[in-house]
């Protein structure tokens, strides 16, 4: 398949990735991302039927440790970095309720 990325595609992807783009940015990114995808066309031409995908170079699997309690970060240390915390929890703006 040949890459033909539209302005609408980019707007949709930006929304999925929680990024807001200006009109100018939409134009710019549509052009730039299309170029990168066109470069990927050389891969699209290959017949790779039956080739297994590799997600990881050496494929270590089922790496587990003994189920023992070890020292870990304190709640206070972790929450100290949070933009907002309350009663030992991360605090965020309203999640449910009226639509914004």
């Amino acid at each position, binding site marked *: *398949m040949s890459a033909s*990325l539209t302005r609408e*595609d*980019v707007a949709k*992807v*930006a929304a*999925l*990735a*929680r*990024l*807001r783009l200006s009109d100018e940015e939409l134009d710019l*990114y549509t052009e*730039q*991302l299309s*170029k*990168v*995808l066109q*470069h*990927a066309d*050389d*891969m*699209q031409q*290959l017949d*790779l039927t039956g*080739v*297994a*995908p*590799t*997600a*990881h*170079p*050496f494929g*270590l699997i089922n*790496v587990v*440790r003994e189920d023992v309690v070890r020292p870990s*970060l304190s709640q206070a*240390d*972790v929450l*100290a*970095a*949070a*933009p*907002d915390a309350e009663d030992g929890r*991360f605090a*965020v*703006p*309203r*999640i449910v*309720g009226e639509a*914004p």
Partner: protein
Amino acid sequence: MTTAREIARRVNDGASAVEELERSLAVITERNAELNVFLHVDEEGAYAAAEAVDRAVAAGQNAGALAGVPVALKDNMCTRGVPTTCSSKILEGWRPPYNATVVDRLLAAGAVPVGKTNLDEFAMGSSTENSAFGPTRNPLDPARVPGGSSGGSAAAVAAGMTPLSLGSDTGGSIRQPAALCGIVGVKPTYGSVSRYGLIAFASSLDQIGPFAVTVEDAAVLLEVISGHDPLDSTSLPEPAFSLLSSLESGVAGKRVGLVRELVAGSDEDVERAVARAADVLKEAGATLVEMSIPELTLGLSAYYLIAPAEASSNLARYDGVRYGLRIDADDVASMNEATRTAGFGPEVKRRIMLGTYALSAGYFDAYYGQALKVRTQMIAAFSRAYADVDFLLGATTPSVAFEFGTKTKDPMAMYLNDVFTIPTNLSGDAAISVPFGTGEANLPVGVQLLGPGRSEPTLFAAARVLEKAEGR
């Protein structure tokens, strides 16, 4: 500049680690304003580490293989209580609650971490021009880039600020700046250096590795930081490398693949350096085998889908909730969006969107799925090559250091810088860039030695042969 080996020997013999640190800080003070290498210098932590080394030596203990050696850290490695930004506004001011494993291992070996170096935001770039805190300048020619993404760590060593530094290499981010700054840079075998505390970009490709002026110094540093870490589930169950013992073993009897695709398209000065390196290895007793590995040319395409796909997932964590920047808004989704829009720079946004697209319904098989299959083919192609030869020789980068702004308009032009380095990240294997002569404008040229996983002892010995031929 004094080597790390020499400093450690002296300090273990009673010379002051604090004085070594002061020498390093003096160079940083003198040159950092011009070069923008360090984003943060941790004087307090560095003095504490140096004083601890001096106390250990005074108490008659061996203070370690890197006793009193100042080391610079790329600012994507977590340092407890010390700002760690990834050169991004989204992490500005953040102080991690823990150390990366490599930082703890440095301290245990007596090293003195002096501060955090500039990078392309989240390690995405090849020139350090994508940093939210301004570009780093190449110490050899401040009108040119130092390379990237570990440009700050490369420049720290090239400018004589620290004898050693650590970078991370996802598609060439150690080897390319090492080549452009005229120093040694190593991308170790995937899984041989812990990624615990390395802020993730593309987890199946990222690997921490050393920068140094000499091959021997790079070997000491890699010995210190390598070895299994239970805190990283992708860490190989292998001990630390032993490299120094075989450093002078040469290349006699080795078979070296001279790979067409790892030089093709380079500038003439780079081609000449690779040809000369081949001659040196041959004279030292290696057998040269000219070869072609056509699969390597697909690396760039596969990488620029796989790395952004992993990045789009890894960078979803920057949502304004647990750490870093938050831009307030009336509801959570708007807060997430406002935070990410304000916090990420253009290249990071580009890659997040590319990765999100490659992973989205309807395109997954065509892009990400196809790239993973190409990755399988690349690994098979390398394996076939390594069945015939011990290691491969090629260029590190297609050209010497370029001037600022020459590749920022067109992302593809910038991405092409990594065409020779990317295949090794996809295969998970090892590679070293060694400075080998000069090219255009008297700037350094790097040649690259590539080998199978865990072939570091062979690669370091070969790198040492090239270094000796250069009179070092």
